[in-house]
C-alpha cells in the first residue's frame, strides 16, 4: 500500500513549495509581451481551445486603502507568496476554520495549481476606482427587498431553499455568467466546432454552448439561470452577449435585466484575457467592467456530480434539526423544573 507513489504526494516545506510555485509564475509573467498572432482553428477562427484556469487571489473590488491600479511586479509576487503560505498553513484546533478537511492535503489550494500573474489591484477595471458603481434607486430598493425577504425566510439552515445556491449545487461563481474563480476547482475546457464555442465549467459540469451564427436571443419571457448566450468574432476576440437571466442568481445584486458582454482574447500560448461588462441600469448607475487573466491548465476535468453526491447538504440540515431538538428538549426541561 505504501508503494503507491500517489498515496503520499510530498510537497516539501510549505514555504518552499510556495516559493517554487511563485518562481514559475514570475518566469512565465516575464516571457510574454508581443501580441499573439498564433493558432487558428481549421475553419480559420482564433484558437482558444484547451484547459484554462481563472484561479486568482485578486479581489473583485480594489481594497479600500489602495488607490493605484497596478502593483509592481515585486509587490504582486510578495502578495501571492503570502497568500500561498497562508493557504497552506494549518488551522488552529478548536477554531471554526479547523472544522473542515485540509484543502492542501487534497491539492485544493490555489497555489497548488496554475495561476496567471495579475498585477492589477482589482478585477474591476471600470469604474477607474476599481469598485462597483453606486446602486441606482431601483437597485437600492431591490437590495432592501431581497434582504427583507431573506430575513423573513428564517435562519440559513431552516430549509434547503435558505442555503446558498452553491451548497444546493444549483449555481456557483465559477459558472456565472460571468465566470469567476473561487476557492478551488477553477478549471474550464474550451472547444470550438464549426458555428459553436463550448465552454465546459468544471464546477457543476456546466457546458455553455454558444452559437456563432448570429441567431437572436431567446424570447424575453424565457429566463434561465445562465441566460441565453450568443457569440461572434471581432478580430481576435470572441464576444459573448448574454441576456434572459432570471432574478435568482443575482450576480453582485443584479436584476434579471442584466446584460452581460464577455470577451476572450488569446494573449499568448498560455494565457487568455477574459473581460466582461455588466450593463444593468435597474441595479447600477453605470456599466462596469472587469478583466481576469486565465492561465493554461491541465485536464482531465472529472465529473462534478455535485447534487448527486451532496451528503453534506443533507447532513447540514439534519444537524440543524438535531440542534433544534436539543434546544427544545433543554427548554422543556427547564420549564418542567420551575
Amino acid at each position: 500500500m505504501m508503494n503507491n507513489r500517489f498515496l503520499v504526494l510530498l510537497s516539501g516545506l510549505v514555504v518552499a513549495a510556495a516559493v517554487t510555485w511563485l518562481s514559475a509564475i514570475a518566469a512565465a509573467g516575464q516571457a510574454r509581451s508581443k501580441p499573439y498572432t498564433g493558432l487558428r482553428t481549421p475553419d480559420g477562427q482564433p484558437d482558444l481551445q484547451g484547459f484554462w484556469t481563472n484561479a486568482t487571489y485578486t479581489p473583485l473590488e480594489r481594497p479600500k486603502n489602495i488607490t493605484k491600479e497596478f502593483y509592481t511586479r515585486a509587490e504582486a509576487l510578495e502578495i501571492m507568496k503570502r497568500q500561498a503560505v497562508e493557504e497552506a498553513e494549518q488551522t488552529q484546533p478548536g477554531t471554526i476554520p479547523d472544522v473542515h478537511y485540509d484543502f492542501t492535503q487534497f491539492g485544493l489550494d490555489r497555489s497548488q495549481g496554475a495561476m496567471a500573474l495579475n498585477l492589477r489591484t482589482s478585477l474591476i477595471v471600470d469604474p477607474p476606482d476599481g469598485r462597483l458603481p453606486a446602486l441606482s434607486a431601483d437597485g437600492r430598493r431591490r437590495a432592501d427587498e431581497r434582504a427583507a425577504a431573506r430575513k423573513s425566510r428564517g435562519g440559513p439552515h431552516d430549509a434547503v431553499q435558505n442555503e446558498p445556491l452553491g451548497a444546493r449545487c444549483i449555481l456557483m461563481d465559477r459558472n456565472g455568467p460571468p465566470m469567476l474563480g473561487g476557492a478551488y476547482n477553477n478549471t474550464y475546457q474550451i472547444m470550438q466546432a464549426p458555428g459553436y464555442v463550448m465552454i465546459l465549467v468544471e464546477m457543476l459540469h456546466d457546458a455553455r454552448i454558444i452559437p456563432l451564427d448570429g441567431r437572436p436571443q431567446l424570447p424575453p419571457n424565457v429566463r434561465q439561470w445562465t441566460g441565453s448566450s450568443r457569440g461572434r468574432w471581432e478580430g481576435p476576440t470572441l464576444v459573448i452577449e448574454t441576456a434572459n437571466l432570471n432574478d435568482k442568481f443575482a450576480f453582485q445584486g443584479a436584476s434579471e435585466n442584466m446584460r452581460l458582454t464577455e470577451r476572450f482574447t488569446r494573449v499568448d500560448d498560455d494565457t487568455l484575457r477574459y473581460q466582461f461588462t455588466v450593463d444593468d441600469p435597474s441595479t447600477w448607475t453605470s456599466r462596469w467592467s472587469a478583466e481576469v487573466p486565465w492561465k493554461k491548465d491541465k485536464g482531465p476535468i472529472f465529473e462534478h456530480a455535485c447534487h448527486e453526491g451532496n451528503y453534506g447538504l443533507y447532513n447540514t440540515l439534519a444537524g440543524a434539526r438535531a440542534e433544534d431538538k436539543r434546544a427544545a428538549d433543554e427548554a422543556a426541561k427547564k420549564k418542567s423544573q420551575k
Partner: protein
Amino acid sequence: MRNGLPTALATSLALMLAVMTAGGQSRAYRAPRAADGKPNFNGIWQAVNEAYWDVEAHAAAPGPVELGAAHATAGGLSIIDGGTIPYKPEALKKKQENYANRLTLDPEIKCYLPGVPRANYMPYPFQIIQGPKYIMMVYTFAGAVRTIYMDEHKEAPADSWMGWSNGHWEGETLVVDTSGFNDQTWFDRAGNFHSDALHIVERLTATGPEHLSYEATIEDPNVFTRAWKISMPLYRRLEKNAQLMEFRCVEFVEELIYGHLRKKPSQ
C-alpha cells in the same frame, strides 16, 4: 436492342443493381468530413422512441393517479436485439422490485445524472461537439455531459454517473468504449438496472445527412447472463435555431429530498 443487351453489359448492370440494393457495405453513406478528415457528427440529435419508458417491449400502463393520462406510460417496442434483457435470476427479482417501486426509486425523479445509454434516448435533444482529441456529448436532462477521449485512452480514475469514455474511429463509425460507472443509474423508467461492472461499447454511424445509426452492446457480469445489444436511429433536429435549453432540475426535487428537514415552526 431486340436481342437484349450484350452479355457483358447485362452482367455488369446486374452486378451494379445487386450491389446497390444490398443496402449495406459497398454503398454506405459517406458523411461530410470534419476538418481532421473524420466523419462530421457535429449537431443536435434526438432519439424518437418510447425506450425512455422501458427498453423492452411494453404496453401502456398507468402513472401516478393524480396525473391521469398525462404521465401514463406510453406503449413501445423493444430496442433490444432478441427483445428482452438477459437478467440473472436474482437480478430479475431486483428489476421487478425496482419496477414495483419505480415512482420512488427512479433516479430520474431526483434529477440525478441519467447515465449511459439512457441519456441518449431521453426525449430531449443532445448536442455533439466534435474535435480530434475530444468529442463532447452534451445532454438536456440535468445538463449531463460526457467527454469522449479520442486521443489518449486512460482507465477511469474513479467511478462516475456518466462513465469514462474512450473513443476511436473505424472508418465511418465512431466506436465509444465506456466503463467506470457507478451502480446508481437505470436504463429507463421501468427499473432496468446495472452494477458498477457495467461496460458499454457504442457505435455511431451516419446513414444519411440527418440520421445516425446508434448501437450499444451492454455487458455486466454481475447482473446479466451475457452481453446484449440495443439499436435505434438518431435524428438530427432540423428546426432553424435549434438549441439545447437549460434543464437545471435540482430545484424541482429539493422539496422531495429535503422537505422533511425543514425547521418546524416553534410552538
